[in-house]
């Protein structure tokens, strides 16, 4: 089970971390089925609530069948955000996630996030054709996967990778 939220009243995400989550990052979500077999899917863009306690990842349905099934069944969630340019990586975990329809501005937000991520890849030397093909699902039907992160980890490669991060007062 994902452990209880930190005793602190502060949200896990400070403003800088929120800015990072909203940047040109790759977003991958994981869960598992009843047998413990992991499921995996990509999201394109996310929203963070005003109080920074809820994160909503925008997940194209066509490429996320197993993951969405597992989340609907009530399995916990882990989400990794990684910026290719800096390798900076954060992982959030929550004991459950709630699936819902996209909000009115979400499709546009997904496309913009896909384009920003593609631009980041192109700047790093990946071909435009590859980069745009990779983010193509950002233009497809999607669901909003909402969760309240209870654990936060620094996963930037290096000796401190895996370190649990506490809320910053």
């Amino acid at each position, binding site marked *: 089970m994902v452990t209880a939220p930190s005793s602190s009243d502060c949200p896990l995400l400070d403003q800088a971390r929120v800015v990072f989550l909203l940047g040109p990052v790759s977003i991958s*979500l994981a869960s598992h089925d009843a047998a413990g077999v992991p499921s995996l899917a990509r999201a394109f863009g996310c929203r963070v609530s005003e109080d920074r306690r809820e994160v909503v990842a925008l997940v194209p349905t066509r490429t996320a069948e197993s993951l969405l099934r597992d989340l609907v069944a009530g399995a916990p969630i882990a989400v990794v955000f990684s910026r290719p340019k800096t390798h900076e990586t954060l992982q959030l*975990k929550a004991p459950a996630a709630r699936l819902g329809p996209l909000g009115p501005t979400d499709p546009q937000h997904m496309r913009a996030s896909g384009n920003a991520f593609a631009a980041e890849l192109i700047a790093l030397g990946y071909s435009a054709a590859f980069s745009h*093909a990779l983010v193509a699902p950002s233009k497809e039907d999607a669901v909003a996967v909402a969760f309240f992160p209870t654990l936060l980890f620094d996963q930037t490669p290096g000796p401190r990778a895996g370190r649990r991060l506490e809320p910053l007062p």
Partner: protein
Amino acid sequence: MTVPLSALRACFEGAVPATIATCAADGTPNVAKLSHVHFVDDRHVALSYQFFNKTRENLLHRRRATVEVIDPASAALYHLHLEYLRTETEGPLFEYMKARLAAIASHTGMSKVFRLLGADLFRVLRVEAMPGDALLQPSPPADLLAGLRACVVALARCTDLAQLLEVTLTGLAQHWDVHHSMLLMLDPDQRRLYTVASRGYPESGVGSEVRVGEGIVGVAAGARTPIRIGYVVQEYRYSQATRRHFADSADGGVLETEIPFPGLADAGSQLAVPLLNGDRLLGVLYVESPVEERFTYQDEDAFVVLASHLALAIDGLARAADQACELPPASVQGAIRPVAPATPPATRSTAPSAAGTAGGTIQIRHFPHDHSLFVDNEYLIKGVAGAICWKLLREHAESGRADFTNRELRLDTSLRLPEVTDNLDARLILLQRRLAERCPLLAIEKTGRGRFRLIVSRPLQLVEVPA
């Protein structure tokens, strides 16, 4: 949709990071980025174990993982459903992954961060192609199989080792568009490889040496595995490895360091393939390119097949050369000319065997401790090739003989040539090329199977330098 693992090998080039999902004993999922998923065979992949992290802890508990890999050309996404089998900390898989990890680390500017502790081996339970908008794949630039066929046909026609080496390296350029290549043979001491042929460099580097286990060539030889690197990587630049270790190594003096390596200063792509006949290592075929990611898995396949044909052909020709009948007793026209011993006693003179060549006497000095030879103070060669050269020169000076056979060299105990493991023809080719490059007044000319002639075109003064 299920697809065979071999169909998506481009995903394992390390060009696009992968993602791994695992599950803890208490059911908490974990998701992380991966720098490197290694293709092992159609049913297995390996992951690099660099740190003990949550992913690894989960794998040891639950043994299941789901990994997303991405084709770097088409952007197609695949999910691999994996079962953890074991961790290897030595051997070919480990060495190959270590070399490739160093390349990726260097490429991404993280050399100090990545270090391989083990190769985690997984069985691939299922490969799932994710629906998406993958791009159509362009066809490969060169038809590898047709080129391989042409190379193998050409190898089969070779009647001696020199021809075999030439045909191999020419074939790479002609059929596979590979223009920087070299062949190294294993020294019988099993610790060094010596360059016997190269193509595409200003200096041939023939005679230069690499220590087994160092640089990409030495590691490929030591682990008996092909190693392919697609980025500029300092750690595996074989030319530097030798230099660096020369100073701080006890056997540094044994290694040939006078002759510089011919390799590219900043190779973008490198591929080293061991020449194996069964389990026995004969040498290494090494190719490189200034272009990054020049060699694919398919190239590696083709090179491994070619190397295997080459190894068989080298062995076959070496046996044939050694079994070839000996010359009838020396009857060399006009070459037998008694030479009066010169002074000091350790010095001998020899007259040119080819008439009409102008020029004064050339001094050749021999240092017995490592058989190094100097021509008028210019370094020529050392080791076995040096010993052979000195023997030929001595005999030529003493009896005027010019024609020799492989067999008599083989039987000469003073040369200490191992019976089975040494490829005498390779030593002679090395000596022949080194003479052609550095000392044209001496030459070795093949006169038949297992026979050759020493040609001396200037008067020589031979000086044995006491230890």
